[in-house]
C-alpha cells in the first residue's frame, strides 16, 4: 500500500490542510519512528514541526533478527495461528529501519516457508509525544467498511485523497 507521492498539500493550501488534520483527530494512528518501533494510539494534537501527541498509546517492537530467524527455522514445525501475531511480510513492510543481512535471510526463509508468525512485543505507554524528527511513517487506521463505503464514492468529504485506497483491498 504505497502512498501516492503527489497526494500532498501545497504550502498555500493551509485551510484545507488544517481541515484534513482536524478530521484525523481521535482516530487511531500508527506512527513508526527511526529506531524501528511503532506507536499505536489516538491522535490528539499536532504542531507545525509534526510533533504528534497520541493518547492511550501502545508501543510495538518488531521482532529482532534473531527472533525472526529462530521463528523462521521453527516454521516448518508449527504453523498454528494466534491472535497476537503478525505476519512478517506485512509487519515488516518498511524494512529500512531494520535492514541487516540476517534479517533479509530471515525474510528469504520466511518467504520460502510461505508465512512466518512472530510475536510482536508490545507495551502500554499511555500519553506520548512523538517528535516530528523521529517520524518515519504514519498510518491511519480505518474500519474496512468505511474504506469500502468511500470507494463507492460515498462520504468522500472534503479531501480528494484516498486515490490509492482502491488498490489496497
Amino acid at each position, binding site marked *: *500500500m504505497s*502512498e501516492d*507521492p503527489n*497526494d*500532498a*498539500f501545497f*504550502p498555500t*493550501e*493551509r485551510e484545507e*490542510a*488544517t481541515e484534513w*488534520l482536524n478530521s*484525523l*483527530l481521535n482516530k487511531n494512528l*500508527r506512527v513508526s*519512528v*527511526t*529506531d524501528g*518501533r511503532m506507536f*499505536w494510539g489516538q491522535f*490528539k*494534537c*499536532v*504542531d*507545525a514541526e*509534526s510533533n504528534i*501527541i497520541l*493518547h*492511550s498509546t*501502545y*508501543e*510495538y517492537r518488531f521482532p529482532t533478527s*534473531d527472533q525472526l530467524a529462530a521463528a523462521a527455522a521453527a516454521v516448518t514445525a508449527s504453523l498454528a495461528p494466534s*491472535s*497476537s501475531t*503478525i*505476519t512478517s511480510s506485512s509487519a515488516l513492510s518498511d524494512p529500512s529501519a531494520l535492514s541487516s543481512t540476517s534479517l533479509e535471510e530471515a525474510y528469504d526463509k520466511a518467504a520460502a516457508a510461505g508465512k512466518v508468525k512472530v510475536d510482536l512485543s508490545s507495551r*502500554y*505507554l*499511555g*500519553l*506520548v*509525544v*512523538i*517528535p516530528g524528527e*523521529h517520524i518515519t511513517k*504514519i*498510518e*491511519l*487506521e*480505518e*474500519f*474496512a467498511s468505511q*474504506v469500502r463505503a468511500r470507494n463507492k464514492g460515498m462520504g468522500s*468529504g472534503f479531501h480528494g*485523497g484516498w486515490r*490509492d*485506497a482502491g488498490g*489496497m*483491498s
Partner: protein
Amino acid sequence: MIPDDHEAAVQRELLTLSLANNDYNNYLFGEEPAPAPSMSNPGIIATTITKKFLSACRTLETGEIVKDGYFTLFEAVGALEIGDPKMDSGCLAPGETLEETYNVNRPLSAPEVLGIIDQLLCLEMAWHLGYPLSQTILTSVYIEALVEPASATLQEADFVRNRKTPRDPMTTVLRAYCLGLVRTCADVLETIRDELYYEEEDFVTNTYRRNLMDHFDRYEIRDEILSAKHTLHGLRAKIGTDMTQALSFRLELRSAFLRALELIEDRGSPDSLQIPWYQMHSVWEAILKLPGLAKEVPEAFSTKLQRKLASSMPPRPMVTLSFDEAAKHFKKLCNDAIDAVKILDYHDSQSLLNFVFLFQAQKPQPLVYIRCLLQNLLFKDMVLLDRLSIRQVMDDDLSIVVMPAHELLDPNNDLVEAAPHSARFAMAHQMELFRKRAAQAYIDIFRVLCQNRCRVRRMLCHLIQDWEQVQLDAEDIDQLLQVQMDEKPLAYQSQTTLTLGSEPGYSLPLSSWAYLYKLRLMEWIVQLGFELEVYAPDELAGMYWYLSHLAKTRAQHVERIQAFTNHRFNELRSSSSTSHPKPIPATPWISPTQPYHPPRGWPVSISSPIAPVTTTSAAAASSSAGAGNNTSAPSAPSSTSVVTHHYSTTPEASFTRSLTYLRSTILDAAITWEFADAVSVIYTLLSRLSLITHPPRPYGTDEQRYEVRMKPFSMVSLPEVPSYQTWKGHTQGIGVGGQVQVQVQGQGDGHGDSERQQETAKQLWEFATQAVGQAKKAFVVLEGLGEREAFAGGGGGLHTFDHSATPSAAAAAPAAATPSAAAPRTAPTEAGGHGTSSSKQAQEQAHDPATGRGNHKRWMENVGRYKRSVEKAERILEQGIKKAVEMDAEGKTTEEIKKVVKVKVPRSEEVWDRGEHWWWIVPDVDLLEGVF
C-alpha cells in the same frame, strides 16, 4: 449520508473520549491497561498518509496547533517524549539492541564469581540506602534470569531452565548466593512494608512485579547455600585456599542474614536474635582481610533489563557504591541490628523511651530497615517488646512519672465487680477510660521517633496536638478521680522560682503526666529545628530563648509533681513509722491484707529485665485476650503465683524510683533552660554588636516569621505562645536575668523603651557567662548519673543479665534507693548548681561495672556531646566575645571589632563532627591571630 457519517463520527468521538479518560486514569493509578490491540485485524485497514500528513503540518504556522477540543495542553505536560533517553524507556541508541546478549550459561571462573557477588553486595546496600531495585540488584543479568519467569520449585530456580548438562560448580555457588540474596530482599521488604516508613523518601518498595522467592522456605535456601559450600570446598585444590575462603565467607554471610531474618520472624529467644548479626559482623571483618581476589564482570549487569520491568520509567543508571563503602554500611547495619535487638531488654518505660530516642539520634541515622525492625520489635501485633501489654508499659510510666505506688494503678482495682458506688470500681473504670484515650498518643511517640529526622519533627508537630487533647481529657478524669479518692489540696513552694504555688491545688496526676510529655515534645521540636537547620542564624537568639522558656516551664511543672510525690511519700513514711521508730528508706513492708494496698509494681520491675517464660506467656495471653489492655497479667490467677517474686518493688522502692526520675528530669530541664538562655544571649550579643548580620528580607516582617515559627505551637493552649512583643524584647536582650520571669507572664509590654535598653553588652555578657557556669555545674551532676538514675537502663546485651541483674530485686532496690532518698532534699538546690553531696554518690554510681552498657553508653555519649557544647560556649564567652564586648565598650566600631573577632555560625553537621551536640548551635567566635 453525510449527516449519518457525521453522527457516527461524533459517537465514535464520544466513545473514544470516555475510553480515553479511563485509560488515562488507569495510567495514572497504575492499573493494568487493556491488552494491546492486535495489528492484524482483517476488519481494520491501515493507510499510509506520511507525506500528506507531514505536508499538512508544514502548512501550519510556528506555534499553531491542531488539537482535539477536549484535550488540554496541561495534560500534554505528562506525555512521555519518545526518543528522549531520559523519558523513553524503549529508546535505543544507534546500534543498541533491546535484548541483553550476555550468556548466563557461560562458564565462570572463581574470581569472576567473586566479582559478581561483590558487585551484588554493593547493589544490595544501595537498595538499603533507598534506591529502587531496578537500579540496583535487578540490573544483574543473573538475578533477572533467576527470578523471571518465577519458578514453582527451588530446583527449577536457576539461571538456565531445564538445563541438559549438569551445572558448573562455580555457577552453583553463584546460584546459591543469588537465591539467598533474593530471599533476604523479600524479607527485608516485608519488614519495612509492615511498619511506618515513607515511600521514596526512606525506601522504594517497588518490586516491578518480580517474584522475590518468598514462597520458598528459608531453610531450603540455606540448604542450597550449605551444599554450595560443600561443592566449593571440593574445589579448594583447584582455586586455592584464599579464594575458597573468600567465597565461603560470602555464602556464610547470606546464610547468617537469612537466619537473622528467620529468628526475627519466629521470635526466637531474645538472646539468640543477635547471634547471626554478630556472625555477619565478624564475617565482614574476615571478608575485608582477603581483598583483591575478585575480577569484575561489568557485562553481567545492565540497565537494559529495566525495560522489561513493570514500569514506564526509562532506564536509570545503576547505583554504584564502592565495595569499601558498602562494607562500611553493611557493618553498621549489623551493629545497629545488634543494638536494636537489645531493646527487648526492658527495664522501665523511661529507659525504653531513652533507648529509642538515643538510638535514633545517631548520625548517620540507622538505615530504614533497622528503623522498621525497631518498630517491629516494639509493636508487633500490639504486644510491646513481645511480652508486655500497652497497659503494662503505660502504668509503669505513670508510676515512674506521677503516681508511684498509687492506688489508681493497683491492678486489684480491676477485680472489683461492677458496683456503681464502689470507689475502687470507679477508679478502675476511669483509669481504663484514660488509658484508652492516651494509649495512641503514647505509642505514637515511639513510632514517630523511628522515622527519618525531618519526619520526626514534622510528626511531633502533629503529635503535640494529640497530647493537648489527651491533657484536656485527663483533666476531666483527674477531677472525677480526686473526688473518688477524697484527695486534699496541697500548697507547695517552688524552689526554682522561689514563689509560692498560687493556691493549694490538687495533684491532677494524669493531666500532669500528659502535660509533661507535651512539654518534652515541644522542646524536641525546637531542638530538632536546630539539628535540621530550620532556623536562620539571626533567628537562633529567639528560638533558644523559646527553648529556655519551655525548659523552664517543664522544670516548674516537674517540681509541682515532685512536691505532690514527696508529700505522699512522707505520708507513707509517717504511717509506717508507727511500727518503726525511724523510717527506714529501704523496705518497710506493707502487708497485703491492709485496706490500703498500693500495687507493688509490674512483673517488669526495675530489676527484672526479662520475666521468666511463664510470665511471658501470661502477658501474651493477657494481651491476646481482648484489646490487649483490658486484662492484665497479675489479674490472671495462674500467673500471679509465678510472678510474685518479681513484685519485689515495694512502695518505698517505687517512690524512690519516681523521685529519682523527677530529680534527673529537673536536672535535665534546668540545664537546658540555663544553657539555652546562655546561647540565646550569646546570639543577642553578637547581633547587637552587628557581628551576626540580618539578611535583607524584603518580602516579610519579623512578626510574620515569628508567627510561622510558632505555628506548630499555636494550637497548644498551655504553655501559651509568648506574644511577639515579649519575644522581640528577649531577642534584643531586654529583661535578661531577673526580669525574665516578669516577661514570661506577659507583662513585658509594660516596660518603657527607655528601661528596655538598660542592659549593656557587658551585662549581657555577664549574664551569659553566669548561665553557662550554672549549666556546667549542673552537668557535673548529670554526668555522674548511673544507669538507673539516668533511666538509661537496658539495651546492654541480653547475655549479660545473669551477673548484672539479680532476679530478686531486694539487692538492687537499696542501691537505687540510696542516692535518691536524698533526692527530695538536694534536687532543688542542684538546679541552682550546688549538687555536691549527691554528685559524690553519683560518681560512685558511675564506677558501677554496669556503666557504659548499650543504652547507658549512648546516653553518656549524648551527655558528652552536650558537655562539649557547654564548654565551647564557655570558651567563646571567655575569649572572643569578651574581647568584642570590651572593644565595644571602648567605643570601637563594628568594622574594627570584625578585624579582631571572627564570628561564624556553624552548620549542624559541623557541630556534630566536632563532637558537640547538634541541638546546640554554639557560634564559632575566633580571635584572629596576631592581635595580641
